């Protein structure tokens, strides 16, 4: 069995799990703990990936690429900070969805910078202080450490007094303002932090797959991350980690069901979608969920 874990196939999945854990935990910080329904997470994932890849291809050492990924993704977060303050619930979801699509259109059409649909091949391996991550196993260890750090960072935020205020804002913005909390400042910080973490995941993704193009950072990618958060349980860090793990692994066993070749791919998507629907009907709060995302401030959920 151990030989299986060393195989690149398993390591590839483990690395993807680390990347998607970072994405789902950071999105949960925005959706679960601060009540801001953000459907633009893949855009920050993409900005981080492109920033890191472009600088790496230009020969910069990895730690500069990493910081650039975090910085530019955070900058992206700052851009949607304004709508995040002004809009609530569905409207915020729609606005961030729009932002995500515009970001992807820029990635696809700003050919001089991103080579557009041709993408960026040959992204160099990660190396810092003379150590180069050549094998997939080394990369996995690096990704695991980063993932654990991000999860600790986010759970620290959530358990700290800062996090307590976040949950208060999620519960009732009016009451939070009345007791002297500057909700604008808190929301902006959360949106930028969440986006910056997505940038980290972007950097890891770029150097792992070594080729990125706009087709990866679509609305469906954000939806996948939202599903991980909802499946795992809104406002539960453990939930997001488990949600990410399940949804990365879910399609894999379907490959081995020996479906008739002509229908295999389509059937796989159908089974995946059916499982998603059933999970939502029978476990709408997600596995660890304890907070249900209600409509703006109407007392009962509609």
């Amino acid at each position, binding site marked *: *069995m151990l030989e*299986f*874990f060393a*195989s*690149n*196939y*398993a390591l*590839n*999945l*483990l690395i*993807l*799990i680390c990347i998607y854990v970072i994405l789902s935990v950071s999105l949960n910080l925005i959706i679960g703990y601060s009540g801001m329904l953000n459907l633009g997470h893949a855009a920050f994932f993409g900005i981080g990936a492109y920033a890191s890849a472009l600088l790496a291809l230009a020969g910069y050492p990895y730690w500069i690429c990493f910081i650039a990924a975090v910085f530019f993704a955070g900058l992206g977060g700052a851009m949607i900070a304004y709508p995040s303050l002004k809009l609530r619930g569905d409207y915020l979801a729609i606005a961030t969805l729009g932002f995500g699509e515009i970001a992807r259109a820029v990635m*696809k*059409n700003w*050919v001089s910078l991103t080579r*557009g*649909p*041709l*993408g960026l*091949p*040959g992204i160099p391996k990660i190396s810092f202080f003379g150590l180069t991550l050549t094998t997939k196993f080394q990369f996995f260890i690096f990704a695991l450490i980063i993932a*654990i750090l991000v*999860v*600790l960072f986010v*759970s620290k935020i959530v358990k700290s007094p800062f996090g307590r205020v976040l949950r208060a804002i999620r519960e009732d913005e009016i009451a939070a303002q009345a007791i002297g909390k500057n909700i604008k400042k808190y929301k902006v910080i959360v949106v930028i932090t969440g986006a910056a973490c997505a940038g980290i995941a972007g950097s890891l*993704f770029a150097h792992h*797959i*070594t*080729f*990125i*193009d706009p*087709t*990866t950072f679509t609305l469906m990618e954000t939806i996948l991350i939202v599903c991980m958060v909802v499946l795992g349980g809104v406002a539960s860090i*453990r939930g997001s*980690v*488990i949600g990410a*793990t*399940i949804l990365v*692994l*879910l399609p*894999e*066993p379907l*490959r*081995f069901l020996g479906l008739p*070749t*002509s229908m*295999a*791919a*389509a059937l*796989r*998507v159908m089974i995946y979608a059916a499982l998603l629907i059933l999970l939502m009907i029978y476990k709408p709060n997600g596995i660890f969920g304890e907070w249900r995302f209600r409509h703006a401030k109407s007392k009962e959920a509609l």
Partner: protein
Amino acid sequence: MKNYMILMSILLITILVVGCAPTEMQPAGEETKEPIKIGFIGPLTGDVAPYGEGWRDGALLAVEEINTAGGINGRMLELVPEDGLCKPKDATNAAQKLIEIDKVQAIVGGFCSSETLAVAPIAEEAKVVLMSPGSTNADITESGDYIFRACPSDALQGEIMAIYMYDEGYREVAIMYANSDYNLGLRNVFSKKFTELGGEIVVEQNYEQDAKDMRTQITKIKDAAPEALYLVPYPADGTIILVQMKELDVDLPVFAPESMCVDKVLVDSGEAAEGMVVSTPTFDEAAPKTAEFLQKFNDRFGYKPELTSYSANAYDVVYLFADAMKQGHITGTEIKDYLYTVTDYTGAGGKLTIDENGDAIKELILMRVENGEFVDLE
């Protein structure tokens, strides 16, 4: 905080074991009578599925034929198709699975250049041959020794058409292309060559690959009144453009790469394709092997593949793999060395020679559409 960390890692590992448990271990087993597996990576769902399906069935047809004819020295051949979705993440997942679990030594695919470019380093590292029947992106040429392709790099196609159009006396030309890797690649090469020759690109329009309404782009081209149009679409959107051009009374001489050298385009666009000049590797559907392939394809699957030349290429790639294996070259490295020796292989996709960095040299010919049929030009 400490116990939380332990809990989290234990959970992570247990989910992993559960998630991957059902994978049966498949030893390579040269001697045993197990079938030899070859992989296939291509877009079977998502936007590019209409073409992926035809390419997979082309490869499937070849595998079935080889097996009916006795397989590889008695051992059956098995195609393991995986869905690449034209996306790097899914293509790498598929490649890792094929290489690690199915222990394939050769893979047919990827189709979209994004798939091939993502899988290339993995295949190179695992010393597994990756031969793409359809990725024309120029970057693939230097992407590795184990990386081949059965279609010419777009460098050739773009240049030939630029030269031809220049010689025909066109100086002010428009380009219209779908906003994806194959099309942008060809557009770059074409415009570089055409401007080098002294021509001028007066207007350029692109569109999302799944777009249906290109009327405004066509109106913009009509407004710039170019002498000719170099159109770089996929067959589906190409058909719509030809139709909409006719509807909008825009009769410009149209030039296109092999993606338009497809019978279905002629049928679906009515007479709108009349007079179109297409550059394509020697793939005339009348050639014996090609016609036979199309006939067998239709008998077996009951439809005509969208991008016929690429389905034929997939068919040829499987046969090339089979020829190598028949001569005892089983491992990826052996197949690789054999492939470099392939010259003037006449397959369903026309005559093919593989050059030193794994690209296919195929003579490119020009054809024109005359009363609903592709006819050879000079």
